[in-house]
Every structure is written in C-alpha cells, then in structure tokens.
C-alpha cells in the first residue's frame, strides 16, 4: 500500500518535471525555428525578398501611416494604370494587419523599429508559433512525445523555411500557423466536446481566411473528415459540437473579410461544408431518436426518418447543382479547378500556368523540401492506425489530401510539409518508444542477473528501469551532436514518457514484443543518424538554397564573390530620374517591385486580376517596334523596363519568360501566334530564329547594343550568339542600363512631326546606314 502511494507521488513529480522540461524544450524549439531563418539577414541584409512581399510591405506601410479605415477604402492608382486597383477589397489582410499590429505594439512600448524590420521578422516569429501549434496538434493526436518531435521537425522543415525566411514577407508565413492552429482547435474540440474550443476554432478559422486563399483547404478537409467519421460509424455528439458551430460561425466570419465576402456562401468551394452540415443534422437526429426509442420502434422510425431525410437531401443537392450549373465555370475559381484537374490551367489559363510555383513538382523537389520525412511518413500513417481515433483519422486524411495537392502544385508543398512533420514526428517517437523500451527490458537481465528475474514486483522493476534508463541516456548523449541540444532533450523526454508508461502498465508490456538488445541499439543509432542527416540538410537548405532574397544576387567564382545589386540600382534610378506620375511598363513580375521601390505607376503587376491588361502588355512586348510603341503610347507609358540576364547568366530574365508573354498575349489578341516565334517548335534566339522573333520589341530591347560588349553578342544564359547583332531602335531610346545589364530601361520617343513623307525618308536613311551611325549612338549614351 505504501509502495503504491510512493509510486503515485513519484509519478506526479515526474509528470511535473516532464511538464517543465517540455516547456523549456518548446522554448528552445521556438528559438531554433526563429534563428534558422535568419541566414538571409546574416548573409545578405535585412531586406524584403522577391516580388509579392514588396507589395505586402507597401500595404503595411500604408496601413501604419494611414490607419485601418483608410486601408479598407484604399484605391491604389499606382498600379494597373489606367484601371487602378481596390486594395482594401482584393487583398487578404491577415498578414498586413498582423505586422501592423505588431509594429504598433512595439512602438507603444517605445521600441522604435521601422516597419520594414517588423515585416522582415514577421515570418520567423510566426514559424516559431507554427511549431508550437504543431506540438499542440500532434499532442492531441498521439501524445506529448510525438508532439515535441513533430515540433522540432517542423521548426526546420526546408519546405516551410523556403517560404518563411526572414524577409520573405508573404501570406504563407502566417497562414501556415493559422492552418495548424485551426486544425489543432478542431481536434481539441473533437476530443473535449467543449463549445469554448469550438468558438476559438471559428476565430482561428477567421484568421486563416484573413491570411490566405488556402483556407478553402480547411473548409473542405474538415467536412471530409466529418463525413468519414459518419460513414465509418464514429459519429458522436462531440463531432456535432466540433463541426456545426464551426460552419455557421466560420461562414459568417469569412463573409466579413472583404476579399471573400459573399463568396463564402456562393462559390462551390464552400458547398461541401453546407452539404455535410445538413448531413450531420440528419445523422444527429437519427442518433437522437435511436437513443430515446426502443429497438423495435426505431426500426419503424428508420424507414420513415431516413426516407424523409433522403428526400430533403435530394432536394438540397438538386438546388445546389442548379446553382452550380448556372455559372459558367461551375462556380469554381480557376485556381481551384486547376487543383482538381491538373491539366486545366495549362489548357485554359496560361496566366496561372505561367507562374513557376504553380507547376507540378519534380521528384527531387520532394527530397529537397521534406528530405527524410518522405520515408518516415508511411510509418507515421501506420502508427496512426494503431489505434485509430478521431484525431488520428484526421491526421491521416490531412496527409492523404495534402500529398495530392502538393503533387499538383509545387507551391502547395507548403501545406504538405506540416502534415509530413506530424506523421514523421509520430513515427519517430513511436520508434524511439519501442526501442528504448526493449532496451530497458533487456538491460536489467544483463546488469543484475543474480539479483532478480525479469518478472518481479512492480516497484522493484520500476527502480531497475530507472537505473537502466540512465546509462542509456548517457550513451545517447555521447552520440548526439552538441549543436542539437533541444533534439537531445526531446529524446530524453520521449524516454521519460516511455519510462512512465512502463512503470504504470509494466505488467502488460512485459508480454509485448521485446526486440533483441543489439537490434534496438543499432536501430536507435540509425534513427539518430537519420535525424542528424535531416538537421544537416535543413541547415544547408536554410543557409544556401532558400535564403537568397532574389533582388540581390550573388555568385561565387574563382576571383571571389560577386554581388549583383542591379534591381535596386534600376529602381533607384527610376525613383530619382523620372517624374512622379510617369508610367512604367514591364512584364507583370516586376510590377510590385516597381511600385514599392521606385514609387512609379505600373501597367500590370503580380496581382494578375485582369488577363486582358496583361495580354496587352504581352502583345506589345511581342510586337514589332512601331506597333508596340503605339500600344504603349495608348497606355500613356513613358518608360519600358526589361530584365536581361544574358551578360551575367541570370536565367530568369524576360527572354526566358518571353514565350509566356506570347501565349498570354495570343490568348486575347489572336494576331500574335506562338508558332511565329518558334523555329521548328524550338525556341531560339540565334541566327536561326524566326524574323518575327528577331524583330519583336522584347528581343530588340534586350539585345540592343549587346554586341558592343564582346564584339560577338554571346548570350550566357542561352549559350549562343545572338541572331541579330546590330539593332536599331526607332521608337525607343535607351536611358539607363544597370551595372551588369540586368535591368534596362528605355524611354518612348515622343511622336515625330506629322509629315509622313519626312518620317519615311528618315527611316529609310537610318536603315540604309545602320552600322556607322550605330557607334555614334553608343558614344552619345552618357551612362556607359
């Protein structure tokens, strides 16, 4: 009796100790998640990355300067000239509001950080939050040990790092946190059946809707899980409490976000949730009636209630189908359709297909982005089935759907990564559990053969196990890399949990399968090795692969480090040398950067809401000079900006994107035909290129004066000599070319005097004497 009391107090002490330990481990995981994302700041500088983050940064600046009400009503006249864009109604405000609030709080605490600094560090902060949320979610699914492992894995999974390094100020940075916390609260509600958590769940869902268009994943995944539970006969009243309030509250909250608005009840992405909402009510009614009736009467009732319920369901489905069929794209947005039918975008919407992150991923990218997790995931799925609970079935459903989505779009690898981390965390923790437990059962037999047999009284076996655990721990400590402190601690905790388990139900577990000592030690070693490999890969990915800000480029060569800061050079030139109201035309990739960094009005930008407008610019770029000049002039454009990588070998330049301009332009203006730009189906820029290609504006603007560099015009991206070397510009003039020629800015020449004969005459004259005047023109250029 006394011994039992002692063990129970011992257990509570150990529980408390474990709680404190896991708190500190979580703290360290947060620090790890934050600091592993700082490579970009250390290696480059504290700067906003890429394209979309510049827009978000600009919106945040506006928000902090003008306040929330002006933000909702903001009509931006600097983009999409002459249309403009209603920013407040077309942007997912979660990220900007978060960063703006953060900035406001810091300022009210007298911590004077600039808006840019707050924006740069928002993503790392939220990735720490996301790893904590992963801990909570996995803890609900499979216990604290699995939770900690999953949190460590998520803190440094490369796929998530790629979207949340310091400076990558994009929606996904906060959305992944929102996604995981929403799932956690759903599972929590499902496990406890508390309305309080259901309310929190709806609010977390609201935050997710605010942050990212990916919220449709949640509002389809949760109904799928509910349906799965109902079909497999796992319906419980907790399921009702978890789901029904979420649909009502979530729909209302989602309609509050201006960019979603009535879409929350009108588009097909959300219909699944309403359908399941009706189904769960029918099912709930059936279960209720089953509860209050006798078995015989229930059989009678089933025929009546079910037939009525089916009738109602049929009516609702008919209404829904009628609604869906009445809209041309069946009520689905283009992006959702391209998810359901992977070939849809490439067939119908080139503008979605043209974005590289909307392409399907390649196999290496799986290995690059989730690394060893790919091998652990199946083990985790198996672990989820032993035993299958509501929570673990949700985890399985989550990973299955997200694997599919990540296979369709490389960008959605980001949704897959948390699921992979959760599964691998479960798998790893279960594996450690099994191995350490079998070691613990073997060791007393080896160490203390004389003293007692394996099957003794429970209290003495607890002591023996504790003794056995200690050398085991120290053994592991030796194998650990010193830098992986938190991982080590977490493993200790896993052991601790297993010690607890063995102490509480040691009698049952003695009968369980015990692996041989050598095998489990070797397996443990291998697992540690696997973890070490993962850590090394993640740190490498964070440091080398994913921390480049893409507006500042570096290259290592034999004569040292080269820094290409051409983009900011060009934008600064625009900012200081052009009028405030001048319009700059470029391909849409550079729209956000131009408005944010150069503060000039652009024609199209990365928010690709108007296909026709983009097609107009694409047409202009692929037209001959005169036609292009007319298009640009009609749009009031003063400057044209092209990105050219041929001198330094920067592969994602406008010539490589040019076929998309042709495709998108040709989609709206049929006189632009893709085959005109291809020689025998091949895209080439050398002397074999088609005349249409050689005379189009993009070609001319990219390669103008390029031959002067080395006398041959060798393009280092395409690895050929260019086809047309001496280019004469009649309607455009070069005003600025950056140091490494990566950005070239041209000005539209003013229209000539309207004497037709004279213009023609001068034209023929210039074309006749092309090469001698060429050199004169180059000398005139004051910048080179």
């Amino acid at each position, binding site marked *: 009796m006394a011994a039992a009391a002692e063990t129970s107090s011992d257990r509570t002490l150990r529980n408390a100790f474990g709680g404190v330990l896991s708190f500190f481990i979580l703290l360290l995981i947060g620090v790890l998640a934050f600091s592993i994302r700082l490579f970009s700041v250390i290696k480059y500088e504290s700067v906003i990355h890429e394209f979309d983050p510049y827009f978000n940064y600009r919106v945040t600046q506006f928000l902090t300067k003008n306040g929330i009400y002006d933000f909702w009503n903001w009509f931006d006249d600097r983009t999409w000239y002459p249309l403009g864009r209603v920013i407040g109604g077309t942007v997912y405000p979660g990220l900007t509001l978060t960063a703006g609030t953060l900035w406001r709080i810091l300022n009210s605490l007298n911590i004077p950080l600039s808006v840019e600094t707050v924006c740069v560090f928002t993503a790392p902060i939220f990735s720490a939050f996301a790893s904590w949320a992963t801990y909570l979610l996995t803890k609900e699914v499979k216990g604290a040990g699995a939770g900690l492992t999953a949190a460590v894995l998520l803190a440094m999974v490369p796929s998530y790092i790629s979207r949340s390094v310091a400076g990558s100020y994009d929606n996904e940075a906060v959305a992944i946190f929102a996604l995981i916390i929403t799932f956690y609260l759903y599972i929590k509600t499902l496990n406890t059946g508390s309305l309080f958590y259901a*309310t929190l769940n709806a609010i977390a869902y609201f935050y997710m809707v605010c942050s990212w268009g990916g919220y449709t994943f949640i509002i389809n995944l949760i109904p799928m899980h509910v349906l799965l539970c109902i079909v497999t006969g796992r319906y419980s*009243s907790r399921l009702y409490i978890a789901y029904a309030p979420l649909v009502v509250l979530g*729909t*209302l909250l989602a309609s*509050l976000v201006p960019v979603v608005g*009535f879409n929350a009840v009108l588009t097909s992405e959300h219909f699944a949730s309403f359908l399941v909402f009706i189904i769960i009510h029918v099912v709930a009614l059936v279960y209720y009636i089953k509860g209050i009736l006798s078995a015989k009467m229930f059989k009678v009732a089933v025929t009546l209630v079910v037939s009525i319920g089916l009738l109602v369901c049929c009516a609702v489905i008919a209404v829904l189908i009628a609604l869906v069929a009445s809209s041309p794209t069946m009520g689905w947005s283009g992006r959702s359709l391209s998810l359901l039918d992977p070939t849809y975008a490439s067939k119908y919407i080139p503008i979605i297909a043209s974005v590289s992150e909307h392409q399907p991923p390649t196999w290496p990218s799986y290995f690059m982005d989730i690394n060893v997790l790919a091998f652990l995931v199946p083990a985790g799925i198996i672990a989820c089935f032993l035993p299958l609970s509501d929570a673990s079935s949700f985890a399985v459903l989550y990973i299955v759907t997200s694997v599919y989505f990540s296979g369709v779009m490389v960008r959605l690898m980001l949704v897959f990564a948390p699921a992979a981390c959760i599964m691998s965390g479960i798998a790893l923790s279960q594996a450690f559990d099994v191995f350490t437990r079998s070691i613990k059962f073997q060791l007393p037999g080896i160490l203390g053969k004389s003293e007692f047999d394996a099957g003794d009284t429970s209290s003495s076996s607890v002591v023996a196990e504790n003794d056995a655990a200690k050398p085991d721990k120290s053994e592991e400590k030796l194998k650990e890399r010193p830098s992986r402190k938190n991982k080590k601690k977490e493993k200790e905790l896993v052991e601790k949990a297993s010690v607890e388990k063995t102490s509480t139900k040691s009698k049952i577990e003695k009968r369980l399968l015990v692996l041989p000592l050598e095998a489990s030690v070797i397996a443990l070693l291998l697992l540690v090795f696997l973890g070490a490999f993962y850590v090394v890969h993640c740190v490498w990915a964070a440091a080398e692969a994913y921390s480049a800000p893409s507006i500042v480029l570096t290259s290592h060569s034999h004569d040292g480090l080269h820094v290409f800061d051409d983009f900011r050079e060009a934008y600064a030139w625009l900012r200081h040398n052009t009028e405030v109201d001048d319009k700059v035309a470029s391909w849409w990739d550079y729209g956000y950067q131009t408005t944010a960094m150069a503060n000039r009005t652009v024609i199209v930008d990365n928010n690709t809401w108007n296909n026709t407008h983009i097609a107009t610019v694409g047409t202009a770029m692929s037209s001959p000079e005169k036609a292009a000049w007319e298009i640009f002039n009609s749009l009031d454009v003063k400057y044209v900006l092209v990105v050219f990588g041929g001198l330094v070998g920067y592969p994602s330049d406008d010539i490589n994107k040019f076929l998309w301009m042709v495709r998108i332009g040709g989609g709206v203006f049929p006189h632009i035909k893709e085959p005109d730009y291809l020689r025998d189906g091949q895209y080439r820029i050398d002397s074999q290129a088609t005349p249409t290609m050689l005379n189009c504006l993009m070609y001319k603007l990219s390669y103008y004066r390029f031959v002067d560099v080395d006398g041959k015009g060798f393009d280092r991206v395409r690895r050929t000599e260019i086809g047309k070397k001496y280019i004469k510009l009649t309607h455009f003039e070069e005003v600025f070319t950056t140091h490494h020629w990566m950005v070239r800015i041209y000005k539209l020449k003013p229209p000539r005097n309207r004497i037709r004969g004279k213009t023609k005459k001068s034209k023929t004259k210039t074309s006749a004497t092309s090469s001698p005047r060429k050199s004169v023109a180059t000398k005139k250029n004051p910048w080179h």
Partner: protein
Amino acid sequence: MARSTSKDAQALFHSLRSAYVATPSSLKIIDLYVGFAVFTAIIQVVYMAFVGSFPFNSFLSGVLSCVGTAVLAVCLRIQVNKENKEFKDLPPERAFADFVLCNLVLHLVIMNFLG
C-alpha cells in the same frame, strides 16, 4: 401496405411522444427555443423567396443568426443532457458559460455583418 405504414407511424408517434414526455423540462425549454429559432429562419427564407434577397448581407445575417442560435442551443442541449454519458465531467454551469460566450461572438459578428 399503406394501412400498416400509417399504423406503424401512429405507433411510432405514440412511443415518440411518451419517450419525449419523460425528458426533463429544462431540455424541453431548450427544444422550444431551437424550434422557435428554426421557425424564424424558415420565415425569413420564405420572405426572401417572395421579396428577393436584395440586401443579401441582411438576409444572410438574419438566417444565419437563427441557424446559429439553433445550432448552439442544440450543442448546449447535448452537453447538459444527463443521459449523455460523454459529458459527465462537464458541469452544466460551464456548458452554459460556453454557450453564452459562443452566442456573444456569433451576435457580435452578425451585428458587424448586418451592414
């Protein structure tokens, strides 16, 4: 066939009624509340069918407010039901507090959405 069905239906109705009489009166009040909320929602939908859904946010918030209160009341009913073994640990006061909180959030959102 039809006769036996109607007979069965009658028997069913009787047993349903006798079973329902046994439920505690507090649950009956909740049931009344749910019925009223659903009834109000139906009235609004019928009205919408006749008049049109022009201020769509008003219609939506009206209907969803009714449906929401009904759903939340059903949740409360599930939680305070003594026969439900799943919620033995949950005191009815806690369940009611959760219900009030959830309703508060719901109606704040609805007030915001009414326009």
